């Protein structure tokens, strides 16, 4: 058989019907993750057509986008402040009960951001096809799964059939060799990739991240990389599973056990790109040349090393972005003022990210006038961070420590940044208004976010490690 890519192997193994010139492939979906924002209209379609969720055993629901992060609202007697969010949460509770879908509800100890909890549970596994009505579903590709975001109509298709109609995308090898220097993280790596190939460089393609720098990453870090594939336009990004992956999965609650584990492991080990397999395109990155990165504009491709200056001039879009940000061509990023710092999200809300933040914040204080909000990616991570002493470090530094959720990444739940304020954020999108109307977002790693919170200005974390 001809040499095949990892993507090719996973795709072919899920082809119920192969594509033809006239019809797309029918692709089987192993795991369907749902949340409160993009599922209600899909449940309505099922109801209108009198259809059940065909495979509730392959469907998992949680609430993360519009849910409050305030402990009083989640666990106390204080009602959810935003009426529309409360309605959406109740709607998901009703839908899950009516259609027999397992739901990790608001007070469930296993609740969290959908892309954080599925790996924690061990429901995300190598070689699977995983979809969710959320573009950051690409996160699960870190396990060698083919995972991509879908719209609500397609959520309905998966509910009704456990399959999707898909055209086969092209492949794109992202080769990263060399070692990252201390203080340079997976977030900086993926921001550099996006900066190099642009925000639409991956359109119509599935990335495979390869090379020694990728192999050296932990699972938390690999998830950060795959998470932001969509910010380069790629619906999915994959990393071949290896010993790091298997060690992560071994003791997870829903990972296979005993003989099943041995069988799974044998299958998973074959999920690598064969030597000599061709990719449709590729890019090479030298990890040893990378520095902490920071965005200065209104898309994740407008990104530079933290010690660099904003380009002197650009096109109309560049000018518009700089006007929105209140920056000027040629400005240095270091030393610019900070109003809010957000550490969290499906990009950087895992334990490794909180550990990095704690490393910087230990025995230090958040600068006066700066709000530092730290939101764990899941309730499980919240408990782990508390047990490890990170939460105490955060609180002693003057940070707010909240219940898990998407929170200030997209500000749906009321955790927002005020107009004109600068937000140094570990999230994934610096689009206009993403964190609140008129909010100005700068994307960074947890190291850079924590260091900037302490200085009250944009700071290079390498001085504080």
């Amino acid at each position, binding site marked *: 058989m001809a040499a095949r890519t990892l993507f090719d192997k996973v795709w072919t193994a899920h082809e119920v019907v192969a594509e033809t010139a006239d019809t797309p492939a029918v692709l089987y979906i192993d795991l369907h993750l749902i949340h409160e924002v993009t599922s209600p209209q899909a449940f309505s379609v099922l109801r209108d057509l009198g259809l059940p969720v065909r495979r509730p055993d392959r469907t998992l629901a949680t609430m993360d986008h519009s849910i409050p992060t305030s402990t009083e609202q989640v666990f106390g007697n204080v009602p959810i402040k935003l009426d529309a969010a409360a309605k959406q949460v109740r709607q998901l509770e009703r839908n899950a009960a009516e259609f027999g879908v397992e739901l990790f509800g608001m007070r469930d100890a296993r609740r969290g951001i959908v892309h954080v909890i599925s790996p924690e549970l061990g429901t995300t596994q190598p070689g699977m096809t995983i979809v969710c009505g959320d573009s950051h579903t690409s996160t699960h590709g870190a396990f060698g799964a083919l995972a991509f975001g879908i719209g609500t109509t397609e959520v309905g298709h998966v509910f009704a059939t456990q399959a999707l109609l898909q055209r086969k995308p092209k492949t794109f090898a992202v080769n990263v060799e060399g070692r990252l220097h201390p203080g340079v993280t997976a977030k900086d790596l993926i921001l550099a990739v996006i900066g190099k190939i642009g*925000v*639409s460089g991956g359109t*119509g393609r599935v990335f495979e991240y390869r090379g020694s720098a990728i192999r050296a990453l932990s699972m938390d870090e690999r998830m950060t990389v795959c998470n932001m594939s969509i910010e380069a336009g790629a619906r999915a990004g994959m990393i071949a599973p290896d010993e790091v992956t298997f060690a992560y999965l071994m003791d997870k609650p829903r990972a296979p056990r005993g003989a099943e584990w041995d069988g799974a492991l044998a299958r998973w080990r074959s999920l690598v790109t064969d030597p000599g397999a061709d990719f449709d395109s590729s890019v090479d990155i030298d990890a040893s040349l990378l520095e902490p990165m920071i965005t200065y504009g209104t898309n994740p491709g407008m990104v530079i090393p933290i010690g660099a200056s904003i380009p002197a001039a650009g096109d109309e879009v560049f000018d518009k972005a700089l006007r929105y940000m209140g920056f000027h061509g040629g400005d240095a990023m270091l030393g610019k003022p900070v109003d809010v710092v957000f550490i969290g999200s499906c990009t950087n809300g895992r334990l490794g990210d909180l550990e990095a933040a704690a490393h910087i914040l230990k025995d230090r204080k958040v600068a006066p006038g700066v709000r530092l909000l730290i939101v764990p990616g899941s309730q499980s991570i919240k408990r782990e961070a508390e047990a490890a002493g990170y939460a105490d470090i955060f609180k002693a530094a003057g940070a707010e420590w909240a219940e898990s959720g998407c929170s200030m990444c997209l500000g749906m739940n009321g955790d927002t940044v005020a107009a004109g304020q600068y937000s140094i954020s570990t999230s994934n999108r610096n689009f206009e208004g993403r964190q609140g109307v008129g909010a100005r977002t700068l994307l960074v790693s947890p190291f850079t976010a924590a260091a900037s919170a302490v200085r009250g200005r944009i700071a290079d974390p390498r001085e504080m490690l």
Partner: protein
Amino acid sequence: MEPVLRVHSKTVVLASSNIDTDQIIPARFLTTTTKQGLGRQLFADWRYRADGAPDPDFALNRPEARGAAVLVAGRNFGCGSSREHAPWALLDFGFRAVISTEIADIFRSNSLKNGLLPVVVDDATSRWLLDNPGALVDIDLGAARLTLPTGVSVTFPLEAFARHCLMNGIDELGYLRSRLKDIERFEAARSG
């Protein structure tokens, strides 16, 4: 879904590249549990001023934009989140087609499933359209062809099955459900 055979309309131009779905419909409006009525919130942060009044300078608010069913936008339209609320909002406002040199994958897929045509054209055609807001254009689905008032005519890529569904008003779910026997066989073969 109503069959879509042809769109014949003047255009509105938003020349920015990388217009993301957060601009098309900001996240704070996603707490809805229906598809209806999102047109009012389309491009909300660009369309309305801080006091809630429409910004008269924004292209969609100008009198000449009234009735336009074709949006011409800069490169990489619809990037960002998977929210189907973006095409729902564009359709509810009255748009039937979006023309750009590049359209993001998930937005494109969502648009096709709702009868909003993603039309990808070459740089020269795009340049002309960006420079001539209000131009009367014709989009013929059968031929996958866009014709400008100058008489210039270009074809655009349109996946065969999506075109078939659009032109016949077919919901893709019907086709997918017709393959349920295949799906069951697939599940049985891998015993799960």
